[in-house]
């Protein structure tokens, strides 16, 4: 236990030492279908003029870690450069039968296999992040254990977190519920799909750097 505490201290020390010198690794985490890749595409479109990954309504569309390097965002005289890491959505269950309404059995099984591997990779990458954006669907229950596990793991690693309540364009969106579930974090409500409130999102991101 003492070793773990010492390791965390060393990790934090080196993270702060190099934060100003290297490219920050900014991770996008969250459950499947929260809009992580839509947000990644929005950021890339806003600052690079190109997309990052494919988006779909079928869960586990992103099944591999995707990295877009050298993104620089600017707001109110501040500047932040980072490598954006889009991760597969973390879930506790993957059933190939859930995909059968969208594709054949062979493809569904293959997708399920890739999804489980993607989740394992996403968890492994937690250690390599400097800052994390947790992207939650604001229409869904924020108290799911996956969300709490992700947040707890980032807290345990002293990794700064910005919580995004995505899909605020939908009527059922409830930012306050996310705020009350995670009162320790700033929550920014956005619609990554329509680019709503992205200015506030970038300002909050710059505050964290």
């Amino acid at each position, binding site marked *: 236990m003492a070793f773990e505490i010492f390791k965390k201290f060393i990790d934090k020390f080196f993270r702060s030492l190099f934060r100003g010198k290297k490219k920050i690794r900014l991770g996008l985490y969250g459950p499947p279908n929260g809009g992580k890749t839509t947000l990644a595409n929005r950021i890339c479109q806003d600052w690079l003029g190109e997309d990052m990954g494919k988006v779909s309504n079928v869960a586990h569309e992103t099944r591999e870690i995707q990295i877009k390097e050298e993104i620089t965002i600017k707001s109110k005289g501040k500047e932040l450069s980072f490598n954006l890491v889009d991760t597969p959505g*973390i879930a506790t*269950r993957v059933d190939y039968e859930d995909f059968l309404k969208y594709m054949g059995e062979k493809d569904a099984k293959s997708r399920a296999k890739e999804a489980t591997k993607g989740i394992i990779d996403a968890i492994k990458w937690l250690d390599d992040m400097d800052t994390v954006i947790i992207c939650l669907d604001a229409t869904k229950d924020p108290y799911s254990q996956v969300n709490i596990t992700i947040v707890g793991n980032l807290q*345990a690693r002293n990794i700064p977190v910005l919580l995004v309540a995505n899909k605020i364009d939908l009527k059922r969106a409830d930012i306050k519920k996310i705020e009350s579930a995670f009162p320790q974090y700033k929550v920014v409500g956005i619609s990554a799909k329509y680019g709503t409130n992205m200015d506030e999102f970038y300002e909050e991101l710059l505050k964290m750097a």
Partner: protein
Amino acid sequence: MLTLQFISYNQIANLEPDDRIKKLLSFVKQDKIVLLEGRLRDEEEADLIRKTMEDIDEKFTGIELGVVHPQDKDSSLYKQIHAMLVRLLLGNRNGFTIIGPANIIQEIKKDPDKIQLLMKDQQPPPTKKTSKKKSKK
């Protein structure tokens, strides 16, 4: 029949993190719903998800996980530090953790102090009509 398997924290307290997870998953794979006293550490919860993903196949489709962990928001700084030290030394024995097989539990819904298990619909038993037809033949 649904089986609830209660596991006291003492039963896993002296196990290595990997062995704790293996033990919990072994019960879940027997289609039992595990009711664990206390909760795993954050890193162990992530490892539980990782190990679950490694084990997923056509039969085992994963787990549903829920933790009820009441927190006394009004406790003094001394009590908070005391609780933290107890957690570090002895593990987190407050609250409880539910881990169930995804083929039985559809969803675990949670408010801070309340937990609801939504079960998957069971297959209806074969109708009598079919058996009557067979007997006529």
